[in-house]
């Protein structure tokens, strides 16, 4: 009788099927709040949200972020306002995915997305540059740098709403 119970258990699990997945072929969906690789966002008009303020680098507990800023002009505009990130690098070997850069960002430019396949053969490959991090240009608009009309993009930080 015990033997039958034993086989029954085995049979039950065979019918249930495996709980593991064949990883590289099959991917496990991540949750909405999952903190994976960073992305630098753009506005709908194609301008970069990042203004090169370096607050993410300041907030980063692991010193993983490196930002160098430069000045926008209307002839060569990367982001609204005066300042943009000339260099933006994240060392994914140092990053601990705490998401504090996200919290520190005043323009919601940096977001931890759901990409988690980060593996490298070379330590230098772990340094993600701005080109690798930035989102593609939305369809139908111009990429950066853009030529913009003077006096239109003077503010780096989006306007705030009145307190209620």
């Amino acid at each position, binding site marked *: 009788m015990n033997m039958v119970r034993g086989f029954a258990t085995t049979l039950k699990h065979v019918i249930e099927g495996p*709980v593991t997945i064949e990883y590289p072929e099959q991917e496990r969906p991540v949750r909405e709040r999952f*903190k994976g690789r960073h992305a630098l966002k753009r506005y709908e008009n194609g301008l970069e949200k990042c203004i090169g303020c370096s607050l993410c680098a300041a907030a980063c507990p692991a010193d993983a972020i490196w930002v160098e800023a430069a000045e926008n002009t209307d002839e060569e505009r990367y982001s609204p306002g005066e300042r943009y990130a000339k260099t933006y690098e994240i060392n994914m070997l140092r990053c601990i995915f705490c998401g*504090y850069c996200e919290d520190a960002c005043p323009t919601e430019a940096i977001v931890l997305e759901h990409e988690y396949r980060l593996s490298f053969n070379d330590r230098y490959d772990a340094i993600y540059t701005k080109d690798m991090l930035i989102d593609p240009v939305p369809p139908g608009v111009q990429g950066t740098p853009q030529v913009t009309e003077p006096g239109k993009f003077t503010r780096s930080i989006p306007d705030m709403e009145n307190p209620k």
Partner: protein
Amino acid sequence: MQVPIMPAKGEKFIIPIGPQHPALKEPGHFEFSVDGEVVTGASLRLGYVHRGIEKGTEGRNWVQTLYLLERICGICSHVHATAYCLGVERLAGVEAPPRAQAIRSLVAELERIHSHLLWLGVAAHEAGFDMLFMHSWRDREIVMNLLEGLTGNRVNYSANVLGGVKCDIDARQTDAILAGLEHLEDRTRHYLTVVTSDVMFLRRTRGIGVMTKDVAEKLGVVGPTARASGVARDVRLNAPYAAYDRYPVELITATAGDLEARFIVRVQELFETYRVIRAILADLPEGELTVRMPRRIKEGETISRVEAPRGELFYFIKSNGSDTAERVKVRTPTLPNMASVLTLAVGHQLADMPMILAGIDPCFSCNDRMIVVRDPAGRGAHWTWDDLREYGIEYYR
């Protein structure tokens, strides 16, 4: 760290175990002196994964230190962050809002499920019961997914910030957690049956590694290990922190003090944990998630205690009024428990050693920090550079 319960003179065989994988996949070095198969003495050497975290805090600001400390342990990361946040908030004279405190407790309890299930699997594996190991780890995925959904990460959740928490809970999250708990509770009942009735398994646990209440008190053992010996001690009850005064837990103890009791206490604690989580979700206070924290923390010092899954976690935090901590001292629960392994080892079969070690749910890397328990060389409390150097040469000899 070297706990000097050295083999008596004249004994012939000393079996070194480790430093690679002494039973668990973490480094530690044991030396058991044996008489035949029976262990007659034991010594322990730790520190192979010392990372200098406490020193590291001195070069970081209060916020950055939080994320560093959260990485002391890969399993109970949240309790480290909670202990630190509570301590710093007390120093700064602010208190996190009730909702934040409740979420802290909630994540801590979810983490406890995660930790206990993980331990159950590891201990079962040491006992040669790999079926239980696989099942419990499969079920652990459920709680890890819940944590990922709630905080964004499967481990190192970053749920805490100084002055509150980062993640809120909405109705969808609540439903997901409740559904998950439903399933887990069912499974946990099954596990309780297994650890108390499987004959083969009981042979590895019942009557092994018996620690009486007196010995437990004397060795200063903490957490479920202590409670399995009848020591009624739990920081959540004795000194409620976060939201535990609002959602009190009930103490789970056992009196046998053997490995089986430790299994039973941990598994039964899971039921208590499910109950507390349901209580929190049913009555989650409304309000803000954070309060504003000053960048510089007032001068002063404090201690902070929380109940980690493995037992009492202790923090000492000192501020000199700047934006950096002057000193953060961490004592993880494995440290007091580790001494019990050496005591319990004596008189048991060598083959029981992995089980006895696994019974305290050890976490080596949490534990590997500079501690002078008793100074055999009679040096003072202050170690000079030369002392450290000499120690280092001796250590890696």
